[in-house]
């Protein structure tokens, strides 16, 4: 494959997935600045390894790389401070936005649950694909996802005005 073709494929991947990758990192880390840094790092890795990457599976490669980078980031953060500070869910009683409530509820999930939920709901990956990305089998993915949704459902249920 020529350099120009690789360049075009890379740029197409940027246009298609940069915001989606960044959203995944943003919602997983609950930190937009770090999410942007990680997205840039993921695309930098893509550019560096463009000749070895199968661009037919570039989306999967990007999300897998982003997930690993996020996990590394969380690991470093946890090593630096024993306590993990996550954003407290905000309860906007007057104008409840269900998407906002769900976004806040993501903070209640652990990283694995959150990753699986984001990959499933935003990116539409199957259990098998998610399992491949985060090194879990299908049933484990399903269990994590079930628990994640249960927590979100309970969080929504606590806000009685939503119903």
């Amino acid at each position, binding site marked *: 494959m020529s350099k120009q073709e690789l360049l075009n494929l890379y740029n197409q991947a940027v246009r298609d997935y940069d*915001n989606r990758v960044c959203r995944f990192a943003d919602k997983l880390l609950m930190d937009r600045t770090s999410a942007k840094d990680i997205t840039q790092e993921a695309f930098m890795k893509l550019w560096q390894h463009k000749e070895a990457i199968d661009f037919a599976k570039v989306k999967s490669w990007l999300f897998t790389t982003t997930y690993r980078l996020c996990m590394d980031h969380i690991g470093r953060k946890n090593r630096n401070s024993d306590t993990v500070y996550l954003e407290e869910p905000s309860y906007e009683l007057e104008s409840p936005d*269900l998407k906002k409530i769900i976004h806040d509820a993501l903070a209640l999930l652990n990283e694995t649950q959150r990753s699986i939920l984001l990959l499933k709901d935003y990116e539409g990956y199957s259990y098998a694909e998610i399992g491949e990305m985060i090194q879990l089998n299908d049933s484990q993915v399903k269990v994590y996802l*079930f628990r994640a949704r249960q927590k979100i459902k309970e969080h929504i249920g606590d806000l009685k005005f939503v119903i």
Partner: protein
Amino acid sequence: MKIHKENIEEFMFDYFEGNLSDADKQQVLDFVHEYPEYEKDFVLWAKSYAHIGEPAPNYNLTNGLIQHGNKVQLQKYYWSAPVLILAALSFWWFGYRQEPNHDSKTAKYEVLKSNSVPTQVHKGGSSIQASSSPISQKHKEETTIESKANTIEGLSPSVSETAKMHKDQNNGESQGHEHAEPLVQHKLQDTVEISNRKETRIDHTQSVTDSMSSSKSISSEKEPAPVKKKKKRNSIDLNTSPKFIEQNPNF
């Protein structure tokens, strides 16, 4: 599989995940209708999927991540183009113009090319005939001293000999107009050229060493320097006059 209160949550989850067959879906709906207390849970499960299909916000990263290949690298150096042009112009102006460093090969080539037109070259008062064009004369001026510096020393003794030879051959008739063979003419041209260079070089070194004094001497040759009138020193008469003693009796 039969749905009951212990596993209804899992069935609801599978219902919304799309993991159930139509028959199983119907079973779930029947169960919820049968037990209205699970309707609330059923709705909550449905709401937990509300974020699906939400478009990704724009994080404004695209322009920073797009690669432009070599264009990006070139764009970094666009600012240096005027600097390079200015540098080239200044080099040309201060370097090339003041000390012309014309290629000696091209000068020779043009001399050979224009050897059909004879011109007269003066060297040290004696006229030497050589065939060259005005272009070659022009290149004589343009060729640098350095490019011929090595050949000057090697060929300079032959200059006077060549001049003499030509003078003898022509015997002063018509100031020695002659159409020599191109090679001979070229050699003659070179020797004359070199002799001129040598002269200019000598003049230059003389002018450098005698910078101030030479300028004065040149001016003295043209105009006789005004003779300085030597001021006579006032001689002191040590002999005392008789009046002095009279005026200074205590002396």
